[in-house]
């Protein structure tokens, strides 16, 4: 599976995930009508666009790498399935569409207000899921990603993030200097070279600088060391 994990594929999946998240957390927002839009109209619209764009990115990446055999085996059936589903959902039943009957109450309102975006984005997303499942189960012969993701180095990002979080937690409780010491120390650990004397010197210089600029110069209401100054 990891052989075809390219940057494009993963970013497409990321956009799909954001679209799903926005749909899920925004489902309670009222849609309204196109004339009087509720707070949920634009969020829903954007979610569908995110889902569609993400799916298109994923599908385009998969298609670029697919060989003849894979296209015949996976792509044609999935494509036919999607077109069939699209037509089927627009079949009228009484005064309504089949899709409206089948959908749960939550999605029904969306389907009524934004038919095409809803259908297109959900079908595209289903196609992505189907294709990825087919590929994961049956494999794809001789395909490798053309822009593989570099293995991330965990040290810098973890230490820098930890430094900022520690700073946020300490700043109001202990004052500027202790928070600063922790942040600078952790951030320096994240770099290539770590010399204790240099880091200490850096801490002293930055403490003085920040005190002069922010406390004295700009007169910000912050404490340097809690309880003392």
């Amino acid at each position, binding site marked *: 599976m990891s052989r075809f994990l390219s940057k494009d594929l993963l970013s497409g999946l990321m*956009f799909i995930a954001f679209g799903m998240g*926005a749909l899920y957390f925004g489902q309670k927002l009222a849609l309204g009508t196109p004339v009087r839009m509720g707070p949920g109209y634009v969020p829903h619209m954007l979610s569908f666009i995110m889902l569609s764009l993400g799916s298109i990115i994923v599908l385009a990446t998969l298609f670029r790498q697919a060989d003849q055999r894979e296209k015949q085996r996976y792509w044609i059936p999935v494509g036919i399935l999607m077109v069939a589903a699209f037509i089927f959902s627009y079949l009228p039943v009484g005064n309504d569409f089949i899709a409206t009957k089948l959908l749960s109450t939550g999605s029904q309102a969306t389907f009524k207000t934004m038919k095409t975006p809803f259908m297109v984005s959900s079908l595209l997303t289903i196609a992505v899921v189907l294709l990825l499942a087919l590929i994961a189960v049956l494999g794809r012969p001789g395909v490798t990603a053309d822009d593989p*993701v570099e293995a991330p180095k965990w040290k810098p*990002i973890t230490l820098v993030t930890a430094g*900022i*979080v520690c700073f*946020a937690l300490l700043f109001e409780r202990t004052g500027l200097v202790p928070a600063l010491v922790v*942040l600078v120390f952790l951030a*320096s650990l994240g770099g290539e070279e770590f010399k204790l004397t240099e880091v200490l010197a850096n801490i002293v210089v930055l403490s003085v600088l920040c005190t002069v600029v922010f406390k004295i110069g700009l007169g910000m209401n912050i404490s340097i060391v809690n309880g003392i100054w």
Partner: protein
Amino acid sequence: MDLLNNLMLGLSVAISFQNLFYALVGCMVGTLIGVLPGIGPVATIAMLLPITFHLPPTASLIMLAGIYYGAQYGGSTTSILVNLPGEAASVVTCLDGYQMARRGRAGAALSISAVGSFFAGTVGTIIIVLFAEPLTRMAQKFGPADYCSLMALGLVAAVVLASGSVIKAIAMVFLGLLFGLVGTDVNTGAQRFTFDIPELSDGIDFAPIAMGLFGIAEIVVNLERHFARSGGTIKVGSLWPTREEIRRAIPAVLRGTVLGSALGVLPGGGPTLGAFSSYTLEKKISKNPGEFGKGAVEGVAAPEAANNAAAQTSFIPMLTLGIPSNAVMALMVGAMIIQGIQPGPEVMVKKPDLFWGMIASMWIGNLMLVIINLPMIGMWVKLLTVPYRFLAPAILLFCCIGAYSLQNSTFHVMQVAVFGVLGYIFVRLGCEGAPFLLGLVLGPQMEEYFRRAMLLSRGDPMVFLERPISLGLLIATAALLVLMALPSVKKAREEAFQEEG
């Protein structure tokens, strides 16, 4: 005459002691971060946004603008002396600037680029003055539908001209728009995506987002890359160019200025595009193109003039229409909103002192920069010897304190951490941060105009096609997208950005 009156008003505002002081501060900071590789104007302006809260609006905008064009000057110093681009727009200057420096003409290269930049900056400022009023007049005729289409055009054009995959960049714009929705809905008061966190009900501040996406993520990537300084610094030598060098530089500066000014106005244009295009142009029309890359004077003069001219003219769409054309302009829009000014055509009418004062100060700032850069060059060179392992923690620290001071809450510092991680993911997946930021800044306004337009048309989306202005803008947007899909254009575009990388 109106124009002269306006300029006089602007000069009188810009020349007050306070505004001169902040222009100087902006130029100094801009030069500083321009000289230092590893931190760009976007991260710096994001870092300083909270501080501008304490300043009067005119002074804060003057300072932020100074940082932006100051960085264009500073970046060339690093390019010429150590062959490292201090700033994205000065990548091309490395090619010939460093070669000139190796032949002992560092001083000449520096003064040509500084004087050329000053000339280009002056022309850029004049262009802003000439175009500001007619454009503003035109923009005042726009209805909600027209505005919505204009923003769509701006966003698409910004995406198309940026490097990288077009569809990913478009997706990033929409992601930015989505993040822009967080907070209280203006029309109904409903809470959207706030997860019951009270701090989010005003929306996500973009200062922490910009710090995270452009500051933190950049630091992390630099730390990974193990940032080594190549070679020693080169002696500057005499600042005076020879007569021959001057003779070759003047036409190059003129061409660079024209090209840079034109490209700067385009959404998504700005300094980097201007510099690259003018370098290519010089190489094409030169009698001996073989000299390029070996220290051609034109190869320094033209791109330096172009990036500065473009830095100036990229203010035009932001000041007149309220549409930012790149990430820095998005932050300037943010700075205006912090001060309670809604960017757009209204600014010129309602706040003429701010508008013209800012423009006049740009010219004064350019003059200051020549003085800051040439005689004080030794000081900036010394700064280059500070290793990155000292700088990285300092930048992090300033980001944290800046984020805290936004509203005196550590919640914003946490936001910086979250968006730092997100920004790192974006970098790893090859997604650009700039379209995201543009979408984020324009998002709330665009929704507002969209809803208003649909309300006025009684829910008929055809309104966007029926109004002639809106229709024209949408056709332009579609044409741009179609153009990008053409195989030949696609290939040329990829090649153009290959040279850049």
